[in-house]
Every structure is written in C-alpha cells, then in structure tokens.
C-alpha cells in the first residue's frame, strides 16, 4: 500500500493501462492502416530520403507532462519544441542532452520527437554523451495502432529488451513517438567558447580536460570548456593562445568517421567543421561513403523494419540507410 485509498494492486493495474486521453486520441489518429508522415520541426527533414507526398501528415501531441527536478527526469510529449522544454527546465537549473535547435544551425523549432527520431547528438557530445542515453522511456503507436511503452521511468532499467534504443535514430520508421521520459542534467556552472587559430586539434583534445566540444575547420579550432571556473582556467592556460568567440555555423550534412581519421580530411569534404574526439564531420554535401552496410547487417535492418512496420506505413520514402 502506498496511499490510503489505493492498494498496490490498484496501482499496478493503473500502471498497465494507458488512460491519458491525449495519447489515446493520438493513437486513434495514427490508426492502423494508411501511410503516415510524422512532422516535427522540419529542421532535419532533408536527411534520410524524401517522404512520400501522398502519405497523411501527422503531428504528435505537445507539452510537458511531468517534470521532477529532484528526480532529474521529465516526461514530455513528442511535438514539444526542445527550446521550450529547456526553457522550462532552466528554471530549476537543468536541461537535457538533446540539441535544442537554436545552438548552431540557427533553427529554433526542433521538436523532442524529431530529435529523438533522427538521433543525432549535439556538438557537446564529449561531455553530454549520446542522445540515445538520455532516453529512459518512450511511448509510441505501433503499426497496428497499439500504444506501446518502451523502457521505463527510472534512471536505471534493464527490464526486458531495449526498444528505446531501436527507436532512437529510427527516423520514425518503426512507430509514431507520442511522449518520452528524458534524463535531465544540471546546466553547466560555467562555460565558455574559445577560438584558436592554427592550433593543433589533437593537442587541444589531449589538453582540454573540461572540453564539451572541440570543433575544427582545417585551420581554426573552437572549444567549449565547461565545469568549475578554476578547472576551466587551468585548461585554458594549457591551450594555445585563444580568444572568446562563438562557434562556427555548421554545414547541413553529417559524415560519420572514426575520431582519428578526422585529421586526414581532404578537399573532397569542401567546407567542413569536424567534431574532434567524436568523429562527426559537418559538410555541405551528403557523405559519399554514407549508407554502406554489409549484406548481413542490411538484411537485419530490413528484417527489423519488416517486422515492426510490415506495410511501410511510417515515413514511407525515408530510410535509416539514407541518414
């Protein structure tokens, strides 16, 4: 018994029954038959192929459902703009590891669901980790119209197979994300962006212990240092001469490389900004090496999509292989 009025069994029954009318309405909208294109903030709709224009467009619900600052979790509906979410969390000195869509590309309307569906991490991945690690629970509508809960509400959980992982970065091809519980984290106590001209990016990586991001365009290195002020200043003293500067605007396409291969990027990339220590290269053109999978892995990917969405209802025309 946890409350005077409800028994444990009552609470267990309630837990297994999704009664939220907003979610039920969304599930009814998704239905179980026709092709659907989920629309987020349209900040990354140029990635992963072109959605079938004849498919029905649908937006997920929006709004913060439940924020627990002392639990460091927030339940938020998928169409909520990340910037709106972060504004609410900042009142308690917190944010999430999701890119907020206002940082480097000038976009202001990335949605929580969109960011999770695309699964691309912010440039601060050295400190903030991968987007997928911020997702604790995810509720989505499956191809047969059923509302499904993946993962769980706690910060640690190994109960059953990890459907959250397969949904993050799936480009909305396996289910329509309705809401999500995210891990929050404290806002950096101090942070500063530095610019170093003609610096060795590898040396910056090895010396900047407080670096959340290190960017390099072949000539200039930018670094965001975060943490305790004294630690940042110690770091800065170890780095080449620097000046305060905002990071560069990022080109729209991402190339995926091993971190140590970044230093050999040649002219084929055109203008680029590389995430040192991570391996992402932001370029003006799609990755010429992108989308290559071994035959066995490609077959496994196809089997996943065939099983979760046998009739290709979700985001027809788009594909994770094209991301």
């Amino acid at each position, binding site marked *: 018994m*946890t409350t005077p009025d409800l028994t*444990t069994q009552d609470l*267990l029954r309630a*837990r*297994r*029954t*999704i009664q939220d009318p907003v979610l039920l309405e969304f599930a009814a909208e998704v239905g179980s038959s026709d092709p659907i294109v989920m629309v987020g903030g349209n900040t990354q709709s140029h990635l992963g192929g072109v959605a079938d224009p004849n498919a029905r467009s649908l937006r997920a619900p929006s709004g913060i459902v439940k924020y*627990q*600052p*002392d*639990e*460091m979790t927030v339940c938020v509906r998928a169409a909520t703009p990340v910037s709106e979410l972060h504004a609410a969390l900042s009142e308690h*000195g917190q944010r999430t590891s999701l890119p907020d869509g206002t940082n480097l590309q000038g976009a202001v309307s990335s949605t929580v669901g969109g960011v999770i569906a695309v699964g*691309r991490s912010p440039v601060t991945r050295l400190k903030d*980790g991968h987007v997928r*690690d911020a997702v604790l629970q995810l509720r989505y509508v*499956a191809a047969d119209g*059923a509302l*499904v809960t*993946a993962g*769980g*509400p*706690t910060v*640690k*959980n*190994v*109960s*059953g*197979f*990890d*459907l959250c*992982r*397969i949904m993050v*970065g799936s480009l909305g091809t396996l289910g329509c994300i309705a809401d999500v519980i995210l891990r929050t984290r*404290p806002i950096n106590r101090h942070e500063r962006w530095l610019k170093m001209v003609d610096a060795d990016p590898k040396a910056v990586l090895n010396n900047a212990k407080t670096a959340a991001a290190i960017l390099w365009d072949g000539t200039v290195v930018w670094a965001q240092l975060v*943490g*305790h002020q*004294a*630690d940042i200043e*110690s770091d800065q003293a170890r780095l080449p001469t620097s000046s305060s500067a905002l990071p560069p605007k990022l080109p729209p396409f*991402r190339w*995926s*490389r*091993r*971190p*140590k291969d970044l230093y050999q990027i040649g002219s084929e990339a055109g203008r680029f900004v590389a*995430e040192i220590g*991570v*391996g992402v290269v932001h370029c003006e053109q799609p990755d010429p090496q992108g*989308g290559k999978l071994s035959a*066995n*892995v490609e077959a*496994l*990917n196809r*089997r*996943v*999509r065939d*099983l979760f969405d046998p009739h290709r209802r979700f985001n027809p025309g788009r594909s*994770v292989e094209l*991301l």
Partner: protein
Amino acid sequence: MKLRRLTKRNHQNSTNNDPCAADLQATLGDQRVHTDSAARHLASTDASIFTGGAAGIVCYPSTTEQVQAIMAVAIKHDRAVLPRGAGSGLSGGAAPLGNPIVVSTTRMNRVLEVDLEDRLAWVQPGVINLDLSKQTSPFGFHFAPDPSSQQVCTIGGNVANNSGGPHCLAYGVTSSHILALEVVLSSGEIVELGGLDSEPTGYDLRGAFVGSEGMFGITTKIAVRLTPNPESVKTLMLSFDTVTDAAATVSAVIASGLVPAAIEMLDRNCVAAVESFVHAGFPTDAAAVLIIEVDGLSAGVSADATKVAEVAQTHGATVRVAANEDERALWWKGRKSAFGAIARVAPDYYLHDTVVPRSKLVEVLEAVYEIAQRYDLTMLNVFHAGDGNLHPLMAYNSRQAGANERVAAASREILELSLAVGGVLSGEHGIGVEKRDFMTDQFTSADLAQQALLRTAFDPFCRLNPGKVLPAAHSCADIATLSAAHADGVWG
C-alpha cells in the same frame, strides 16, 4: 509458491552417443567439447538461486569461426544454444533450459587491440571486466562499468546483461560504453553491429543487442569505449542515525544539482556483516552509511565534495573523507564484499534487484523493513542509492521449514511495491528466468509483443537461450528441445 530444486531430474538426459556431440567433437576436437556430467553440472547454474537448469553439451571455443561452426552443428541438429560467460549472473539468465548446447566463452579471453588515440579496445567476450581496466589503467584509461562481481564477470556477460555498478551513476551502464559488436546470429551469419565511427548507418542494432540476455546472438568480439581515469577523486563516508535521513540525503544531493560518480548505501545490518568480514572501518553504530564519491578535475571535485558534506550535515550526517587511496580502496572493498559477508549471517541469501524513483526511497525502504518484519526475515540493504537501484537482501536458512516460502512471498511484495511506486523490475541483474513471469506486471501485452518482434528480428528460430525474459505467451515457438524443460522460473 516454493523455490525449486530440480537439478537431478534435469540431468537425466544423457549425451552419450549423441550425434550432435559427435559432430561437435569432429568439428572442434575433443578438448573443446565436453559431454561429461561434471562439465554439464557446472554449466547448469549461474549465481542465482535458480537450480532448475540443465546443460547439454558444453563447448569451449576460442575463435569466432569456432562459434560459427558450433552454430552450424546446432542448426543441423535443431538444438538450442546458450552463450555463457562467468556464470556470475543473478537472474538465472545463464541457467540452461532444455539441455541446450552451452557455448562457454572462458577461452575467448584475449584483449585483441587497445587504441588509445580513439580511446577504445577490442576484446573477446570472455575477458574479465577488471582485467581490462588493470591493463589500461597504467595508460590513464579504464572500462567504466564496475559491477560488484567485476573480479570474475566477463565483458561478454556485461553486454548480455547491460551491467551496471556503483560508478554507473555518473558514467552510465554498459550500453554507453559499447561501440561495436561482432556477433554470430542463430542463422550462423556473422554481423558487426554498431561501429567505430561516430554515427554508424542503420538502426541502433548495437544498442538493441546490449542487454538481450544471450537471446539475440553470441558475441564474439566487443569494441569497448575506454574512459580517462579521473584526475582527482574524493570519497566521503556519511553515517546517519536513521535510514530515513540517509535516503533523504540522497534525494537532496541529487536535487542540489550534483551528479556524483557513485552514491551507495549500506544499512546497519549490512554494515555489521561487512565490518566483521573486511574491517573497513565502517561505523557499526550507524543506522545507515552512505559512500559518496565525486571525481573529475581537482577544483570541481573539491567544490562538489564540500557541497555533498554540507547537504549531508543538514540531514544529521557524520562526515568522513577518505584520507588516502588506501582508505578509499578499503571502503570500496567493504562495499563490494557485502554479498560475501552475508555468509556470516545465514547459510542462504536471496538478493533482490529493483529500481524505484529516487524520491520514493524513504517510503519504499520503510515498507521493505515492514515486509521483512512481517515475514520474520533478516533483511540487509546495500544498494546503488544514487539511481534508486534497490538490492534488498534476505538472509535465511533454506532448511528451516517455511523459509523458502516466506522469502518468495516477501520478494513478490517488494517487487509489486517497486512497480506500484513507478519503479521497474530490474536495474542491473536482468530478467532471465527469475522475473520472466513478472514481466506482465510491468508491461502490457502490446509492449511484450513489440519486444518479441525485436527478438524475432535477431533470432527468428528462437534458438538462443530459449525460455528467458519473455513470458511463454509472448515468446515465439521455442524449438523442440525446450518443450521437455521444466521452466517454471525461480518461484515455481
């Protein structure tokens, strides 16, 4: 409900004159294929209390190609296959059901490559967790997941269970530290999941595989992320007059905006057991002790340690800071030896593993003690308080009339309580056979159907570790050999 003891019955099936064994021996050689009852007996259990396991032939490959060859023989003879690491799991996940071919990874124990520039290592699945960190620490790096069993558990086992450990509070569980996996699927195909590049193409099959409890494939190589050793570490031991104050301190520390590397709690019963076993200097007069560790760069660590101490003192804590690395190591030895220390309390113990919201710790702990009292059980609590991962530990004597039944009933209540307050079934031990039949308490039929789809994508034949995780109604038709197995789970 009662705890099952079925070992003898399930070992009646002989492997003598088994054509499958003959094929395996012809393929791998006699040294790598054991059919004797001793080998099968050793492979029939893990570290859980489940004793209903029954191993078939036990194989000891050392290469990917040998694992693939085993799978080919299994396919030919339509046998189930169970990958097995150190057998240190606590959920019955490595306890074989239905005499499967057991693939022990103990001879796949080589660190294949360490790449410090990209901060990763390729290892075989049988590498012991702590051994990898011992090898890389002199170069300034370690493998962050640190389960209490890290001196014996394998990295392949960590992948199968998505293992945690005290320092996962700040560093994340195993999934966050796995870059790529080489896997032999039940079809015999070899796939590489994930990759060493920053954003591998396709669905996150690597992430889906981690934590799949040996049911999606057999891991043959693992690329793990290496984490830089912290420049500075401070470890605090906080003692409290009440468990409530200790639990409230956990919530207050988290709410203050700190994310320590670890927050561990031991209650009075556990401290007493540990202290008489390890003599770590834990205060035996305290109702509860918290070990809180902060790490990182020196200025931030000093500031965070000061803040932790201030928060704790407002809740009545007596604060000690480890004076040096030796004292810190001793405290951690005490924490990680807790389960071994229980042997001094009673001949048997059952270790639970659930997670509750951190804000519910006080409420749940009070209820756990009430449950223990009602069932007349000795209850010790030692757990990862920072992420709400409870490990209520019931010490008992299974030969005492009714003891098993009382443990089972108390365990069920704790499980239901955890779920009722918004928690989950398992934080790090996994589901295995132990909690398989409780999955319907956390998940709906639709949820479980989707999980079953994921398994089917990897193993359409249900050949790998059949009978685990998913309740029978949500599991695909497991291959014929399982039908003979007794698979009632721990609770029968």
